[in-house]
């Protein structure tokens, strides 16, 4: 057998199984999402009717979809801001301040990230329970009864309660990411600026923040994508979108239409809109936050 033939067979055998799996379970379903969004399909009838962009027109006037859009945007902004500030703060403290127990804190902060979303939903159902929940009883313990709330029952605050669980879940993950890039900044920068009389806060804004800016930009895209995805998984396991649609988010509404409600075509149209939305938002944010990269 010639060497080239042997090589060809080798390459073929190695790549084809992966390609087949990728094609069947990722590429074809993705194409299907876009194709199906143009059909009216589902409910009790099993015939597909091509309707062009009708699904998207209905979507525009669907008050429930608008609501899920608002909730998702609230979550993206709320979760990103708080998680990012806390994660950068704790990453700076742990890396720059040489605290005792550095490794211990890092291990603890990362724990929520390895838990199943179903478990996190269970934990926060126990935390937020109005009568026997940890949070309300903690307030009672310190005589702060006026702070007690119906965390998941009150339509106004339920979405922020979901956000709280997402922040709890995410801080450790992003902190570890920022820690890695802060640790890469040469110590000499800090020493030089200390000689010039720069304090901690000045050092943070003039050295740390500009030098990890690229990393922060990358994580902004992660924040958008993972908030959209994780809020769906959490809402699905925790509130099912209730009370009365107050915690309905993008993908939970899509799943409700496409799977529970069997309106496949309409559900996929929602999926397309969400996909384009997250793509556009990431692009815009990446554009806005673009700065000249500082080299070191």
């Amino acid at each position, binding site marked *: 057998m010639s060497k080239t033939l042997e090589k060809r067979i080798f390459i073929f055998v190695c790549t084809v199984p992966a390609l087949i799996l990728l094609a069947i379970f990722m*590429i074809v379903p993705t194409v299907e999402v876009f194709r199906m969004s143009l059909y009216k399909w589902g409910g009790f009838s099993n015939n597909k009717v091509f309707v062009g962009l009708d699904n998207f027109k209905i979507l525009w006037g669907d008050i429930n979809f608008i609501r899920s859009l608002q909730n998702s945007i609230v979550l993206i902004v709320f979760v990103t801001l708080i998680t990012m500030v806390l994660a950068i703060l704790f990453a700076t403290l742990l890396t720059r301040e040489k605290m005792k127990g550095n490794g211990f804190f890092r291990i603890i902060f990362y724990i929520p990230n390895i838990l*199943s979303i179903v478990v996190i939903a269970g934990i926060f159902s126990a935390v937020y329970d109005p009568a026997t929940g940890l949070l309300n009883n903690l307030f009672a313990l310190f005589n702060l009864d006026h702070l007690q709330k119906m965390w998941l029952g009150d339509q106004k605050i339920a979405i922020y309660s979901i956000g709280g669980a997402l922040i709890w879940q995410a801080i450790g993950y992003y902190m570890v990411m920022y820690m890695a890039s802060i640790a890469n900044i040469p110590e000499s920068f800090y020493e030089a600026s200390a000689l010039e009389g720069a304090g901690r806060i000045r050092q943070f804004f003039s050295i740390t923040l500009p030098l990890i800016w690229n990393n922060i930009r990358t994580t902004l895209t992660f924040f958008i994508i993972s908030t959209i995805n994780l809020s769906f998984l959490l809402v699905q396991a925790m509130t099912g979108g209730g009370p009365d649609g107050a915690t309905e988010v993008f993908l939970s509404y899509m*799943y409700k239409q496409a799977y529970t409600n069997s309106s*496949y075509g309409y559900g996929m149209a929602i999926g397309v809109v969400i996909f384009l939305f997250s793509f556009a938002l990431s692009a815009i944010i990446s554009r806005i936050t673009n700065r000249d990269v500082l080299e070191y």
Partner: protein
Amino acid sequence: MKKQTGMNAEKVYRLFIYVALITLSVSIIVPVAWVFLASVKQNKEFYGSPWAVPEGFYFQNFIDAFQKANMGTYMLNSMMVTALALLILLVVALPAAYVLARYTFRGSKLMNSLFKAGLFINVNYIVVPIFLMLLGGDTFLQDQFGGGFLLDNLFVLAVVYAATALPFTVYLLSSYFQTLPSTYEEAALVDGAGYFKTMIRIMIPMARPSIVAVILFNFLAFWNEYIIALTLIPGPNKTLPVGLMNLMAAQKSAANYGQMYAGMVLVMLPTLILYIIVQKKLTQGMTLGGLKD
């Protein structure tokens, strides 16, 4: 005198940092530890203050979860699916990643971009089309042979898990293969070892650190996953997280709190044990890939 106040300010500052660090630690440890305590409480204890310590060690919750709530079966299912999916993933991804990292051939560029594009596809978007595809396959098999087997099948679930993890795994492995020196395989090829032998005997063992990272991440992902399992397994052969969801839903009406918290412990205990053993590798490996589902 001035130096004295400087020292004090420094002390107050460090104290303040510790308070912040400890507050966050407590807010993470307490809810998790509370679930462990709640899993050995008797049902009546749940009507008092949640901050009360368990009166005794009520292990019956776990026995009930295993027998009445079927969590034993679900746990076996989860172990099987996770192990099988990891096996399929490694067998398929390792050769593909190696070839993509080392050889250029017709279509290799296209193949690379296909896997890269796959990184942007999230499984939450495509779970319904996958379901419909399998449903369609089952209907077809039903008509032709009188029985479908694609839905409600743990093996198919494992294949779907492996397939959806492929882009990230291939990306991670092939970037690791690229860092390995090519002198080893050149020497092996000159010595007359075939392509397959060179890959299996020499290159794959050298990629061990990245393989460990792949196994860790995907073990957590597969073990914790629920939305695909929920959609593709409508029947009774559930995985552990889906079983836990059912327990949580049932608890709203039946109030079997102890059983539910025992179920939560069953889901998170294996991941916590694994984490304690390998936590260093996990937080280091994360910067290797740095992607999240």
